[in-house]
């Protein structure tokens, strides 16, 4: 029997091609997704091992609520990052830790990401695709995994060491001079060293700064001084090499003991921190795998019914053969096995091809990333587990697909098998009822989700207490997902019942345009409702995902455009592309530009808190000109008079902040600010110390020179004298700023809340006017983030724009945009997401085409005689092709339409849920969705070609006389 099966398989090989491709595609996605995730994880682990390589870390003990970052990532409900942050610890602990026995080196490594911009040799800013530009304070011993390859580490603001990848990307080498754009503006720097790490840094541009410079940059950015999140500790137990786990633990224990009481600090092993980091990063990257898997599942789903269809065809055609086998005494099980053997073979070949394909896909992605400037060193080879999973999935899907046809082959009584049998379809009504129930339940989930989102933090979403309690526990995201799952599955379950009505409705147009072929095609669809529905389902899921994303993306664009259209009154905006801070020189350059009438400056106040003691809350605080609301941005007022409040020195609070803190107009709030001032006393002391040091050194050298001169070594004496003179010169040239000592003063101001506004841009901010801001912070803790520029009346905005662009060119990173560009700058980001979206769409189309081709092929094979009859009564070849094309198009349109409806609904619900995050407007991209439908028709036409060719290849005579 097995031999018969194998021989059959060889005979049916051409038939199996499509099944093999489908299985291979599905398996490749499964294997590829696992492989990709492992590669990313591997890369993350490698990078952590290299970049977070200390043996022990000292960090705070109290877990910190995500207040600081909450302002920038509200509504994400902590899902964006699972990494906990702890209270900052005092930098002075370094001294305590360094004294512990077994500690080779303890210190704070200051690093900043996205703050600096390196100018490449060709004069353009180095851009790295997706990966950040990082500045790290490095000197000997601060980063064990980094090896200095050439030159030395940087010692001051005008020196940098570059990571080898950065050096290569920027085309710079030791000794080259270039510009580095600090937050305060570009400065000339000299490359003094090149270092490398064993692990690729995934495209990050790493700049080694002098530690003191890095500290300044970091402090300036965070507004935190004298504190740090981590102190890194390298142990000496292993002779400078990384410690093993036990050694790390032991050292951590010792360090912990040495930490003074009340320092609110503890020591943890490096491995533990790396684990935490790695888990958090992997969580963030985790969304990629399910996304790939979804399409893998679609491919496998289509694959399984392509297989079912193929085997149905084969079984149908071989029925007489099976009947013969049965009549000569083969048992049903034996007949079953001849079919299943073919399925097994097919599954093996398909899975094998899929594993290879999946591996190739990941390789291709790695190659693509490397070409795009993000080299990966993580392993990208599927492990035995991946292969086994792929093989198991492929085989399972094949067997599931082949089981029913094989059963039919085995159980058909010999006599019945001799005749052509038409299996009447089971009624689809039960499925319709079940599907509708699921869809209704899903819709209820969504309605609940919308109610929860609408209600926000105040008020109850529903009149039912248990549901409200649930809402507090699970939030809006959970019902959103459950609703989506229910609706998608529900529609798939329901779809066979939809086929007949949909055929009538969708078929109306073709039935009128092509009276005969259109009508025939429409009715053919309803003959095998399940098969038609399954074929459409493949497209449905893909299109639903894509159109949901399209709606969200389009709404995001429209919301930004809406802000600009309704709120923004200024002609231009200026922002920094890197750090967010606009250097003061750039501000004055813009002010001085000809044609500029007024410049409104948004300055962020660092480290401002509200309230007192433990309840102190953080919020992004901006200093604005009093004219902000009249000249730059129209307020959307929730309570109070925003314009008057700003002018009269009261707080204007964003709705989210007000809700979080329970503030109302008229409340008085304590504002705690920070001012960094020069500590005259300490500075004087530092300068005196330095002078004394230099004097001592010159005195010493001079003394040596005199001694040498006395001893008769004139050359030596001369050298020493020169050295002494150089030391004195160096001292005179030393940057006085390095000797300035600063101190932080805390300020407390009581201010009345004057207005609450709900513009989405201001929702999570507190605004105050410049005068008030000056009382809270000073210029050292306030940085210009954004400029709003109005052109002079009657000035040509295009010319003014050109002048502005020219004015900020020396600052490299300042981006001046007019209103349209401001709109589209947000859109570009969205557009990049859309590219991924279209790749996914293409994928689901390819899979769907396979499904349609296969379904039609089966249908054509079943209808050989009918098509022969049609031909005999005068149907032309074109009409037969047309009929099949209409059938295929209707299937495709049905799937697409269902997908678009569900996707748009999902997108609309998602928009409501994330309304407070800026998705203020619902925009349905009808043109895109329309294009999907047109595409569906085309897909149908293309998919109908191979089955039509097959149908027409059969001579009319053979077709009609086939018995």
């Amino acid at each position, binding site marked *: 029997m097995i031999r018969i099966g194998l021989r059959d398989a060889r005979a049916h090989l051409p038939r199996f091609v499509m099944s093999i491709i489908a299985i291979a595609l599905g398996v490749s996605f499964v294997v590829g997704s696992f492989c990709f995730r492992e590669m990313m994880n591997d890369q993350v682990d490698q990078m952590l091992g290299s970049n977070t390589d200390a043996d022990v870390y000292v960090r705070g003990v109290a877990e910190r609520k995500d207040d600081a970052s909450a302002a920038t990532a509200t509504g994400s409900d902590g899902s964006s990052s699972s990494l906990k942050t702890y209270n900052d610890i005092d930098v002075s602990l370094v001294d305590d830790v360094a004294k512990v026995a077994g500690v080779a080196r303890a210190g704070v490594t200051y690093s900043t990401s996205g703050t600096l911009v390196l100018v490449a040799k060709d004069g353009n800013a180095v851009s790295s695709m997706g990966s950040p530009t990082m500045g790290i304070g490095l000197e000997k011993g601060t980063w064990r995994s980094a090896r200095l390859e050439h030159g030395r580490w940087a010692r001051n603001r005008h020196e940098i060491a570059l990571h080898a990848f950065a050096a290569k990307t920027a085309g710079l080498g030791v000794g080259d001079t270039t510009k580095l754009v600090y937050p305060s503006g570009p400065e000339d720097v000299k490359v003094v060293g090149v270092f490398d790490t064993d692990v690729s840094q995934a495209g990050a541009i790493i700049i080694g700064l002098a530690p003191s410079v890095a500290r300044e940059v970091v402090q300036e950015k965070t507004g935190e001084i004298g504190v740090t999140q981590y102190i890194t500790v390298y142990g000496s137990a292993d002779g400078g090499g990384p410690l093993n786990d036990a050694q790390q633990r032991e050292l951590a224990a010792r360090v912990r003991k040495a930490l003074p009481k009340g320092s609110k600090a503890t020591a943890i092993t490096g491995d533990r921190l790396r684990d935490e980091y790695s888990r958090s990063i992997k969580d963030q990257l985790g969304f990629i795998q399910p996304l790939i898997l979804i399409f893998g599942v679609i491919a496998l789903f289509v694959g399984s019914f392509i297989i079912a269809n193929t085997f149905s065809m084969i079984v149908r055609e071989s029925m007489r053969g099976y009947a013969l086998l049965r009549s000569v005494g083969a048992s049903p099980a034996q007949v079953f096995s001849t079919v299943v053997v073919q399925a097994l073979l097919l599954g093996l070949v398909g899975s094998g091809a899929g594993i290879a394909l999946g591996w190739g896909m990941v390789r291709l992605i790695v190659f693509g990333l490397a070409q795009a400037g993000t080299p990966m060193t993580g392993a990208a080879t599927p492990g035995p587990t991946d292969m086994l999973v792929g093989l198991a999935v492929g085989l399972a899907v094949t067997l599931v697909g082949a089981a029913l046809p094989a059963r039919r082959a085995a159980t058909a009584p010999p006599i019945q098998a001799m005749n052509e049998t038409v299996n009447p379809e089971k009624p689809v009504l039960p499925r319709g009822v079940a599907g509708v129930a699921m869809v209704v339940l899903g819709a209820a989930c969504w309605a609940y989700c919308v109610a929860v989102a609408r209600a926000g933090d105040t008020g109850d979403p529903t009149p039912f207490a248990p549901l409200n309690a649930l809402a507090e526990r699970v939030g809006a995201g959970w019902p959103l997902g459950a609703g989506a799952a229910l609706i998608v599955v529900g529609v798939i379950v329901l779809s066979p019942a939809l086929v007949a009505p949909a055929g009538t409705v969708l078929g109306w147009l073709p039935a009128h345009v092509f009276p*005969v072929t259109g009508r*025939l095609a429409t009715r053919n669809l309803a*003959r095998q409702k399940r098969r038609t529905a399954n074929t459409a389902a493949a497209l449905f899921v893909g299109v639903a995902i894509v159109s949901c994303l399209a709606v969200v993306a389009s709404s995001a664009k429209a919301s930004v455009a809406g802000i600009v259209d309704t709120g923004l009154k200024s002609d231009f905006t200026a922002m920094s592309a890197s750090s967010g801070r606009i250097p003061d020189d750039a501000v004055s350059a813009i002010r001085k530009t000809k044609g500029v009438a007024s410049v409104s400056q948004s300055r962020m106040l660092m480290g401002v808190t509200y309230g007192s003691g433990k309840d102190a809350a953080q919020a992004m605080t901006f200093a604005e000109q009093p004219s902000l609301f009249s000249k730059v941005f129209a307020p959307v007022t929730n309570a109070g008079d925003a314009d008057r409040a700003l002018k009269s020195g009261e707080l204007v609070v964003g709705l989210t902040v007000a809700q979080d803190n329970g503030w109302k107009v008229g409340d008085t709030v304590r504002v705690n600010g920070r001012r960094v001032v020069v500590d005259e006393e300490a500075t004087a002391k530092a300068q005196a110390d330095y002078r004394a040091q230099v004097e001592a050194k010159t005195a010493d050298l001079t003394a040596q020179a005199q001694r040498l001169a006395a001893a008769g070594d004139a050359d030596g004496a001369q050298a020493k004298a020169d050295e002494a003179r150089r030391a004195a010169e160096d001292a005179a040239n030393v940057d006085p700023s390095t000797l300035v000592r600063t101190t932080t003063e805390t300020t407390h101001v009581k201010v009345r809340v004057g207005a609450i506004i709900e513009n989405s841009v201001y929702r999570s901010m507190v605004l105050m006017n410049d005068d008030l801001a000056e009382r809270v912070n000073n210029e050292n803790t306030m940085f210009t983030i954004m400029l709003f520029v109005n052109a002079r009346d009657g000035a040509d905005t295009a010319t003014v724009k050109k002048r502005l662009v020219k004015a900020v060119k020396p600052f490299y990173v300042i981006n001046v945009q007019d209103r349209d560009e401001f709109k589209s700058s947000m859109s570009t980001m969205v557009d990049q997401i859309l590219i991924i979206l279209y790749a996914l769409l293409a994928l689901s189309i390819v899979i769907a085409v396979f499904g349609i081709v296969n379904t039609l092929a089966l249908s054509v094979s079943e209808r050989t005689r*009918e098509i022969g*009859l049609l031909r005999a*009564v*005068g149907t032309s*070849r074109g009409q037969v092709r047309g009929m099949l094309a209409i059938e295929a198009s209707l299937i495709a349109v049905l799937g697409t339409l269902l997908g678009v409806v569900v996707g748009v609904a999902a997108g609309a619900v998602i928009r409501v849920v994330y309304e407070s995050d800026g998705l203020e407007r619902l925009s349905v991209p009808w043109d895109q969705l329309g294009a999907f439908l047109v595409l569906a028709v085309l897909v149908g036409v293309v998919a109908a070609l191979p089955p039509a060719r097959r149908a027409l290849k059969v*001579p009319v005579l053979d077709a009609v006389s086939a018995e």
Partner: protein
Amino acid sequence: MARHSAASVAALKDRVDDGPGTAPDAVARAIDLTKAYGDADARVVALDHVNVSFTRGEMTAIMGPSGSGKSTLMHCMAGLDTPTSGRVVVEGLEVSSMNQRQLTKLRRTRIGFIFQSFNLVPTLSAEENILLPLQIAKRPIDRVWFDKVVDVTGLRPRLTHRPSQLSGGQQQRVACARAIMARPSVIFADEPTGNLDSRSSREVLGFLKDSVHEYGQTIVMVTHDPRAASYADRVLVLADGRITRDLRHPSYEEILDVFATEGDEDRENGPAQAADAHGAGAGA
């Protein structure tokens, strides 16, 4: 008998060779038609230099045992099969050299078909099936003619039914109605009553005969059944790819008689053909 048939074939041949102009009543003609299957080693000749002409307004039955070439003759005449040599002319058009497009046009305008089974498109109602050829060809529908055809076939109450809701006889009557609806030059019927009980057979054959006599329809019918053949104006008997008899208005008994003697000859020629002929006789 053999001499007689040879003579009549010769006469036929003469008439055909006179050209289209001299035979105004011939709808379809086969001229020196040969059809062979297989290659040189295993050559099976289904039609052996057949010359025949079908007269307008006549119902011709083609009879003969299995393998005699009767179906092949009809398929070649209808353009469903291409002859190895010789010509087929329908209404002055040479079918044997037509391409697919021309064949489609021929089927739309000149030829109607009735098959033994599977005559109807399952997804279409009876009415839609009847109108199918006209709609495919985008020809106008003559409602008066349609009503007449429907009434004659007695299908009025069944028009909205799907084929699966009709009996075998009703299905064949729908097929007949469909074939006649387009008023083709000639209807080729392949065992139209092969799957029917005797009452349904009578209905269908009666309807076909009426359409010939009342509306001047031309019908060529392949059949095993002497009773079906007895409805025809003319009966051609084929054996081994040649026309052996050409009977004018034969009675049922005459036809049976022919087969009885044919059977004797077959028994002398070989047992296989005899069994076939016997089977055909038993079927009737």
